[in-house]
């Protein structure tokens, strides 16, 4: 693209120093123009409220009276709050339970669809769970997994197996929440992968096939490497989403039993709207933000290694 002639180059202000010239180059102006609408939306509905949340994190604000500045008090309290650390631990565990399985299953599903059946029907079917809201999904699974009234346990009983409490047991609740979310997001994630698979030229597979490569080998040599941009996207967004798990917990467990599912965003919500500690909730949000920034940078670095997407 550097070779592309720029017809407007002549109009570029000439007397500017080179560093500034870059700012006013035609391409830069175009770039800014292209992102302008999105940027306005970003500033109004993401950046400003984030800055506001950041400043609130240095105050004691119960939502009902004006905030009172307290400096770093919320952050100090947070370090000393065992519930906060426990919530972080639970969240981390949840992400570990959720992400690997969900990603692998989705990729498997996408490849199966790509290589076996390209039918719209199958694609429409696998996205069905995603059509239901998180809340409704949690409600369905309350029924399905109910220890006494649920199909799954009735079925286990028919097989002579012991009933499982799922949401009701502190040992199973978190994994159950993860399972429910894998169910809802598997098809959705598969569809993302599937869209990525479509951009891989068919000819590559045909050529490999003629060379006698197995499906397995083609997957590792062609599919996976060429799917990298989509994989980065899937992993980054699902890790961010997974760290913010909330709805399923709110409906199905309420953070229980005995704090087994008190994930960080649930604890933030509790503090903000039940304990009326918005300042504290904002401080925790900032810590979560930092953790996610680190994770995201790591992921992007990892996946970009030796091969820049931005070339």
């Amino acid at each position: 693209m550097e070779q592309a002639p720029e017809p407007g180059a002549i109009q570029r202000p000439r007397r500017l120093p080179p560093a500034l010239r870059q700012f006013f180059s035609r391409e830069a102006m175009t770039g800014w123009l292209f992102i302008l609408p999105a940027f306005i939306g970003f500033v109004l509905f993401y950046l400003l409220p984030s800055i506001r949340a950041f400043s609130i994190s240095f105050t004691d604000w119960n939502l009902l009276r004006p905030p009172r500045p307290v400096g770093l008090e919320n952050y100090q309290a947070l370090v000393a709050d065992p519930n906060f650390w426990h919530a972080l631990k639970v969240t981390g565990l949840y992400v570990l339970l959720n992400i690997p399985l969900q990603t692998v299953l989705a990729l498997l599903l996408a490849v199966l669809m790509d290589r076996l059946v390209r039918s719209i029907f199958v694609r429409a079917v696998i996205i069905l769970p995603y059509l239901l809201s998180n809340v409704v999904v949690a409600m369905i699974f309350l029924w399905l997994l109910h220890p006494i009234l649920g199909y799954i346990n009735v079925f286990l009983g028919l097989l002579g197996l012991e009933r499982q409490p799922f949401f009701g047991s502190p040992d199973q609740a978190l994994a159950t929440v993860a399972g429910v979310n894998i169910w809802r997001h598997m098809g959705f994630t598969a569809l993302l992968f599937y869209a990525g698979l479509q951009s891989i030229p068919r000819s590559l597979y045909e050529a490999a096939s003629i060379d006698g490569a197995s499906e397995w080998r083609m997957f590792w040599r062609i599919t996976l490497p060429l799917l990298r941009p989509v994989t980065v996207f899937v992993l980054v967004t699902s890790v961010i989403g997974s760290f913010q798990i909330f709805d399923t917990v709110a409906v199905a467990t309420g953070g229980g039993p005995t704090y087994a599912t008190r994930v960080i965003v649930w604890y933030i919500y509790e503090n903000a709207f039940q304990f009326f500690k918005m300042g504290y909730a904002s401080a925790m949000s900032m810590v979560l933000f930092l953790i996610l920034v680190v994770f995201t940078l790591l992921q992007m670095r990892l996946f970009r290694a030796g091969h820049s997407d931005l070339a």
Partner: protein
Amino acid sequence: MNPVETNPIRVRNRVVYQLTPGRIVAWVLLAVLIFITLFPLWIVIKTAITHPKELFEQATLLFPSDPTLLNFRRALGMVSLEENLAVGGVANINFLTAMRNSVLFTLTIVVSQTFFSAMAAYAFARLRFPGRDLIFFLFLAATMIPGAVLFIPNFILVKNLGWLNTFQGMVAPFVLMTPFAVFFLRQFFLAVPKELEEAAYLDGASPFYVFWRIILPISKTPLVTLAILTTINTWNEFFWPWIVSKDNNMQVLTVALKMFQSQTPQGSPDWTGLMAATFLAIIPVFILLVVLGRQVVESLQFSGLK
């Protein structure tokens, strides 16, 4: 492309030519995954066709002994309030108004959000300008702060704009972008071969022309995929439209359907009504999905011929 080469692809749409053990395993896996996906949805249908008085007693049955359409009539507001309350239902909802509002709400957001996000994504993927990567990362970082601490500032902003209880207030946070959409499209635009654009630029085309006539058409699959996902997410959006809309005739479906959910601190939802309404609410999205999905397939076949 000559027919000899296109044939295997077309054939693969329907027929399996060789049943190798690997393929059998693959088919079984696919079938299992589809079954796992579909089975829980049976709860929605089964609950929807069960009479409210029989729901709990027949909880463990796979099929209600006496299926009924009563709940669908209730969800559509086709029974009298008295009749509704007599079976433990809640006040009637205006399903069709809510449906219309949802369609309008979703359509506005999907079209404008996808377009503006695509513009930004193109700039992030292709154009060079100072601060590009930083701004892109900021966009992404915006999704990392929990909504619980963001919506109050947003609400106050919309209130100060005088947009409470208006359509523009309801769509405002969504119409210009979501980080998800920008990120998604950027990743796809990165994968588009550069040669196409370079040729156009050499011919003296403007960046907008390249974006509009080259990038968008060849990105039909990701665009439609994104539009589908945005449609679903917008259709399911509850909290913001709920908190911004006051009048009943402004309610979108999710807000109206909330009626069926827990009304009291220690109460139980109107399960049968809720599931019937849920079922009705996903029908339009499902139809759209199949229609758009067909589009994707056609566009694939089209680009395959190029």
